[in-house]
C-alpha cells in the first residue's frame, strides 16, 4: 500500500482489493503515528475523511465511480475548505473556518477524492524552508541525524507525500514553492502556466505570480492531478479560457527528436559540481531517449530575484491589507480605537517574514518610489518574458537545476533574508514570465534527493509531463523513499 501511486490505488479500488475506507484509515493511522516526527499536517480531518470514504465506497459498489473516487489526498492549507480550518500557516487565520471552498477543492470533491487534512506551509506562502509557519517547522523526511528543511513554501505537502502520509497533495508556487520542496523531498511537482488553475479560494500572496499545482511522486500522478485542477473559472478573472487536454494522453509518446535548451546563465557559478554531474547524468538519459541539446541564453536571468522582490512584496502588501480584524481572522483583545484594532490585530497576527515583506511592498508602492521600484520591476519582468519567448523559437523545452543545493539544515542561512531569497534563483523567472515549470527527481547528493527543472512554453504542460514520464520510465530516482518512514 505504502508505495502505490494514485494510478495503482485507483486500480486496486476498482478491483475491490481494498475499500476507500480501509485505504483512508491506513493513511490516517500513518499520519497519527508518524507525523509527530515531521509536523507536515496542520489539521487532520478524521471525521470528514471517514465520511467521504464511506460515501466513495457506496459509489464504487454501485458502479458510479471514476478513477479518483475514494483516493485519499491532502490540500495545502492555503486552499479554503468549507467547514475545515484554513490557516495559511498564520496566527492571523488560526480561527478561520471558511464559509466556502476554493475551486480546486470543489474540483477534487466533485471527483469523490477523500481529503485527509491540510498541510503545513510557510506563513502566507512566504518562505523557502517552512521555518516561517506559525504551526511549527516541518522536518524533511529524508533527514538522518540532523533535521533538514523540506523546502518551502509547500514544505508540508512535500514532506507528507515523501513520508507516504498521503499519496499526493495540492501545492502552490509563487516563486518556486512547488518545485523547490519537490526537489528537496525527491518528488515530482508542477507549477502550471499562470491562469491554468483557478486561484479562487486560494489565499492570495502575489496575485500575478501565484499558481496552484500538483505535488506527486510520479509524472503520471501529477498528470492525473492536473486533469482535476486545471480549467477556466469565471470566479477567477485571471484564469484563462482555453481547453484543458487530457494530460495523461501523451505520457507514453516518444520524445525522439525533442530539442532541449540549456540556459548558459543557469549552468554557472551558482551550480555546484555535484549538481552539475547529477544534471549531466540526467541529460545522458534524455539523450538516450532521443533528445538533443542546445545552449540558449536568458540574458536577464540575473534580474529575476530583484524584480521578484519588488513585485511579490508589493502585491503581498496590497493583498494582506484585507486582514484588518473586522470580518474574519484574528482580532486583538480590547482595542482602544479603530487604529489600535488594525495595528494590534495585524501586528499580533502576522509573523516576522510576512511583516518584512509587507513593509518592503508598502515602501516600493509609496509616493515617490512607485516608478523607481514597481514600474521598473514590471518593465524588467517583460524583458525576462521576452528572453523566454525568443528561446522557445529554437527549443521545445528548457532544462536546468531546480534548487541550488540539496536540503539544508534549519537556520543554516543565518539571519540575512537575502540568502534565503537566493534559494529560488532558478525558479523565480518562470513565475515572472507566467510559464509552466516542473521539478522531478534527478539524483542524490550526500544521500539526499535533488531535482532537475523543466520549463515549458505556455500551456505546454502535456509535453513536460510526457518528458518527465519518459525520464521516469528509464530511471528510478522517483521511486526512492526516505529510510525513516
Amino acid at each position: 500500500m505504502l508505495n502505490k501511486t494514485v494510478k495503482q490505488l485507483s486500480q486496486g479500488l476498482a478491483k475491490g482489493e481494498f475499500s476507500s475506507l480501509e485505504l483512508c484509515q491506513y493513511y490516517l493511522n500513518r499520519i497519527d503515528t508518524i507525523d509527530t516526527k515531521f509536523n507536515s499536517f496542520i489539521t487532520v480531518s478524521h471525521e470528514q475523511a471517514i465520511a467521504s470514504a464511506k460515501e466513495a465506497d457506496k459509489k464504487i459498489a454501485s458502479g458510479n465511480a471514476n478513477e479518483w473516487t475514494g483516493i485519499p489526498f491532502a490540500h495545502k492549507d492555503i486552499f479554503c475548505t468549507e467547514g475545515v480550518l484554513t490557516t495559511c500557516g498564520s496566527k492571523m487565520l488560526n480561527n478561520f473556518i471558511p464559509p466556502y471552498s476554493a475551486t480546486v477543492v470543489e474540483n477534487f470533491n466533485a471527483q469523490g477524492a477523500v481529503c485527509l487534512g491540510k498541510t503545513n506551509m510557510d506563513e502566507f506562502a512566504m518562505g523557502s524552508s517552512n521555518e516561517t509557519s506559525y504551526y511549527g517547522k516541518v522536518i524533511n523526511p529524508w533527514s538522518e541525524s540532523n533535521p533538514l528543511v523540506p523546502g518551502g513554501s509547500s514544505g508540508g505537502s512535500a514532506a507528507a507525500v515523501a513520508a507516504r502520509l498521503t499519496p499526493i497533495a495540492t501545492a502552490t508556487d509563487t516563486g518556486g514553492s512547488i518545485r523547490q520542496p519537490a526537489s528537496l523531498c525527491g518528488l515530482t511537482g508542477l507549477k502550471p502556466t499562470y491562469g491554468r488553475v483557478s486561484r479562487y479560494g486560494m489565499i492570495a500572496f502575489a496575485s500575478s505570480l501565484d499558481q496552484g499545482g500538483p505535488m506527486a511522486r510520479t509524472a503520471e500522478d501529477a498528470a492525473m492531478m492536473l486533469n482535476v485542477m486545471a480549467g477556466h473559472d469565471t470566479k477567477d478573472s485571471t484564469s484563462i479560457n482555453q481547453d484543458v487536454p487530457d494530460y495523461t494522453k501523451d505520457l507514453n509518446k516518444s520524445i525522439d527528436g525533442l530539442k532541449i535548451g540549456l540556459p548558459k546563465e543557469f549552468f554557472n557559478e551558482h551550480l555546484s559540481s555535484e549538481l552539475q554531474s547529477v544534471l549531466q547524468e540526467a541529460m545522458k538519459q534524455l539523450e538516450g531517449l532521443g533528445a538533443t541539446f542546445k545552449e540558449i541564453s536568458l540574458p536577464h536571468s540575473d534580474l529575476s530575484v530583484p524584480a521578484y522582490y519588488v513585485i511579490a512584496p508589493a502585491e503581498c502588501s496590497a493583498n494582506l491589507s484585507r486582514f484588518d480584524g473586522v470580518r474574519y481572522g484574528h482580532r486583538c483583545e480590547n482595542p482602544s480605537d479603530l487604529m489600535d484594532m488594525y495595528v494590534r490585530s495585524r501586528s499580533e497576527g502576522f509573523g516576522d517574514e510576512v511583516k518584512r515583506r509587507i513593509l518592503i511592498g508598502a515602501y516600493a508602492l509609496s509616493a515617490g518610489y512607485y516608478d523607481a521600484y514597481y514600474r521598473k520591476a514590471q518593465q524588467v519582468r517583460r524583458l525576462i518574458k521576452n528572453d523566454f519567448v525568443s528561446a522557445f523559437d529554437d527549443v521545445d523545452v528548457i532544462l536546468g537545476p531546480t534548487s541550488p543545493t540539496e536540503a539544508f539544515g534549519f537556520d543554516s542561512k543565518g539571519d540575512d533574508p537575502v540568502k534565503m531569497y537566493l534559494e529560488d534563483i532558478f525558479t523565480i523567472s518562470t513565475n515572472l514570465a507566467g510559464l509552466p515549470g516542473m521539478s522531478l527527481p534527478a539524483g542524490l547528493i550526500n544521500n539526499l534527493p535533488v531535482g532537475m527543472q523543466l520549463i515549458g512554453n505556455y500551456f505546454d504542460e502535456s509535453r513536460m509531463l510526457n518528458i518527465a514520464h519518459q525520464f521516469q520510465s528509464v530511471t528510478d530516482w522517483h521511486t526512492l523513499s526516505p529510510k525513516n518512514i
Partner: protein
Amino acid sequence: MSVGPDDINKIAHLARLQIDSDKIEKISKDITNILSLVDELQKTDTSGIEPMAHPMDASQTLRRDDVTESDNRDKLQGIAPSTEDGLFLVPKVIE
C-alpha cells in the same frame, strides 16, 4: 538606498503595523539589504518597455450584470469577530 528606523516607523504606520522597538534596527538592516539587491534593476535600460502586469497580457473579463449570488449574510458573518443585527462591530469611530 538606506532605510533607517524613522523610515521603518513611517512605512509601518502606512501598513498598519507596529514594529517592536528592539526589532527596528534589525528590520531596517534587512530591508536595506533587500533594497540593495533590488537596486540591481536600476542598471538595466528599460526605456520604451511596456510594464507587464499579466503574463498573457490578458484584460479584465466582463460578464452580464446579473445577480449570481444569493444572500449568505448570516453564514459569512458567522466567522466575524463581532457582529450585531447583521452589522460588523468595530470600536467607536465617531464621537
